[in-house]
C-alpha cells in the first residue's frame, strides 16, 4: 500500500488531523505520523523506547487472550503500579520503630488519598504474587519453558523468588502485631538451617530478634535492593523473550 505521510488536506476533518498529528511538536516527539498506516504502526513500536520491548509484528496466536491471559504483562503492570504507589508512601513513612506505626496510621487516616495509596499498594502486592504464580503455571502448561527458553525459565524462577522477597520485606514495615510476628516466624525458618542458619538470620534481622535494625534492613531491601534486582532481572527476562524468537509456538 502506497501511503503518503501527509494526506492532502481536503475537508475540515483532514485539516484538523493535519494540525493535531503533523505539527512540529508531534513530529519532534514521535517522528513518524499518526499510526494509521502499517508503516507508521511499525515505526510507532520501533521508535519508542518503551514500546520497543515488543517486536513490530507478532504471530496471531499470541494475541489470543487465552494463550497468555496477559499474566506476565499483568505482573509487570503491577510491579509498575507498586513502584508508583510505593514512592508516594515513602513521602510519609519513616522506618524507625518509634515512628513507623504512627506514620502508617497517619497515611491511613489523615493524608489525603493516603488510604488509597496504602490499600492499592497492599492489594497490588498480593495480586502480584498471585499473578506471578499463575504466569508460571501458564508458561509451564503451554510448554514454553522448552529449549531455547530454558534460561528464561530460570530467570523467571529468580523473579518469583524476588517477588516473594519484595512482598515479605514490605510486610514488616507497618510495624503492627501482624507484621512483627509474621516476620519473626519467617526469619526463624531461615535460622533453622543447619549450621549456617543462625548467623544468616542474625545478618538478616541485624540482631537476635526482629527490632529496629531489622526494620531498617527490611526497608532498605524493600525500597531499593529488591526493586533494583527485580527490574534488572525483568530486563533480562523481556530481552530474552525477544532473543528466543518471541513467545513459544508449535514447531
Amino acid at each position, binding site marked *: 500500500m502506497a501511503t503518503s505521510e501527509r494526506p492532502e488536506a481536503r475537508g475540515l476533518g483532514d485539516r484538523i488531523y493535519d494540525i493535531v498529528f503533523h505539527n512540529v511538536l508531534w513530529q519532534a516527539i514521535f517522528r513518524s505520523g499518526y499510526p494509521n498506516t502499517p508503516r507508521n504502526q511499525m515505526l510507532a513500536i520501533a521508535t519508542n523506547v518503551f514500546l520497543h520491548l515488543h517486536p513490530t509484528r*507478532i504471530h496471531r496466536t499470541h494475541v489470543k487472550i487465552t494463550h497468555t491471559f496477559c499474566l506476565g504483562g499483568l505482573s509487570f503492570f503491577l510491579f509498575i503500579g507498586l513502584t508508583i504507589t510505593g514512592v508516594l508512601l515513602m513521602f510519609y513513612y519513616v522506618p524507625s520503630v518509634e515512628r513507623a506505626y504512627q506514620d502508617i496510621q497517619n497515611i491511613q487516616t489523615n493524608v489525603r488519598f493516603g488510604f488509597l495509596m496504602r490499600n492499592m499498594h497492599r492489594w497490588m502486592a498480593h495480586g502480584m504474587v498471585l499473578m506471578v504464580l499463575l504466569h508460571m503455571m501458564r508458561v509451564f502448561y503451554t510448554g514454553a519453558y522448552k529449549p531455547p527458553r530454558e534460561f528464561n525459565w530460570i530467570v523467571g524462577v529468580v523473579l518469583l523468588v524476588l517477588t516473594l522477597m519484595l512482598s515479605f520485606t514490605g510486610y514488616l514495615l507497618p510495624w503492627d502485631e501482624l507484621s512483627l510476628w509474621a516476620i519473626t516466624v519467617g526469619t526463624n525458618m531461615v535460622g533453622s538451617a543447619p549450621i549456617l542458619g543462625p548467623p544468616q538470620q542474625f545478618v538478616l534481622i541485624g540482631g537476635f530478634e526482629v527490632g529496629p535494625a531489622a526494620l531498617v534492613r527490611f526497608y532498605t531491601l524493600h525500597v531499593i535492593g529488591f526493586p533494583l534486582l527485580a527490574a534488572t532481572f525483568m530486563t533480562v527476562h523481556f530481552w530474552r523473550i525477544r532473543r528466543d524468537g518471541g513467545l513459544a509456538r508449535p514447531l
Partner: protein
Amino acid sequence: MATDAATAASAAVRGRARRQREEELLVWPDLVFIEFISALVFTLMFTLLSIAINSPLQDRANPANTPNPSKAPWYFLNLQELLLHMNPALAGVIVPTVALIAIGAIPFYDNSNEGQGEWVSTPGGGRLVKLGAWVGSIGSLILILWDAAKHVQVYQMIFGAGSWPTSLNWFKSARDFQGWLDTSAYSPIPDGLRRIPLGDYLLRTDLLGLTEEPIDLTVNVPGLIVEQIIPVTLMVGLPILLSIVAWRIGWAKTRRDHMILQFSGFLAVYFTLTIIGTAFRGRGMELYWPWDNPPVIT
C-alpha cells in the same frame, strides 16, 4: 541511503525461512490495544478494591505479646504447615531450596522442543493434570489429617470414646510414633541406639568464627527417623511412585508427560498446604474450621 538499508532489510526478511507473514499481526494496534485495556481494567479494579476494603492494621507491635497463632504471610504458610510435620531445617530451608532448584531444572530434563506453545499439548495431557491434582491434594490432605490424629477421632466416633486400641497408639500421629519409638517397650530400636553421641567437638564451629558453644551432636534416632527420614522418604518416594504407576498404566509416556504429572501434583500439594495453613489453622496451629476460629489471613 535509506533505500539501500531498506532493500537490504527486506532482502534479509525475504530470506528468512518459515516465517509466515500472513499469520502475523501488527503489534500496534492489535497487542498494544489489549495491553492498554487490561492495564486500564486492572487499574480500575484495584482502585475500586482499595476504596472498598482497607488493608489491615492491627495494634502496634509488642514484642512481649506473642499472638496465638503467629503466622507468616500467606505465601509462606505452606512452609509453615510443613514445619508442623517435620524438622524445621527440612521444612523451612531444604524443601523450598530443593523445590526451586527442581523447578528450574524442568527444561533440562524435559529438553525436547516438541509440544511447545500450546496448552497441555501431549495426548492425554489433560488426564495427567487431573491425576496429579487429585493425588496431590487428597494425598497431602490425608497426611495432614493423619498427623492431627483425625482418624482416631473418626474411629472413636464410630466405636465409642476411648475405643482406640492402645496397641495401635504408635499409629496416632507422627509425634506419637516418635514417642513410641523412644520409650515403648515394643520399640524396634534397641535401648542403646536411641541416642548416639557423636561428641561435642566433632565440628569445631568456634574455629570458623560461627559459634562459641559446642554444637550438641547427639543423634536422636527416633527424632531423626520421624522428623527427617520418613518425611524425606514420603516427599521423594510418593512422586516417584506416582510416575511409575502412570508409566505402567500407559498414561505417561514422554518426559513432558511426567513433568505435567509431577508439576500438577506439586501445585496441588502447594495449594493444599497453603489453604490449610491459611484458613484451617487456628490457636496453637491446631486444625479448626475457618468459621470456628477466624484466622488472620492478610
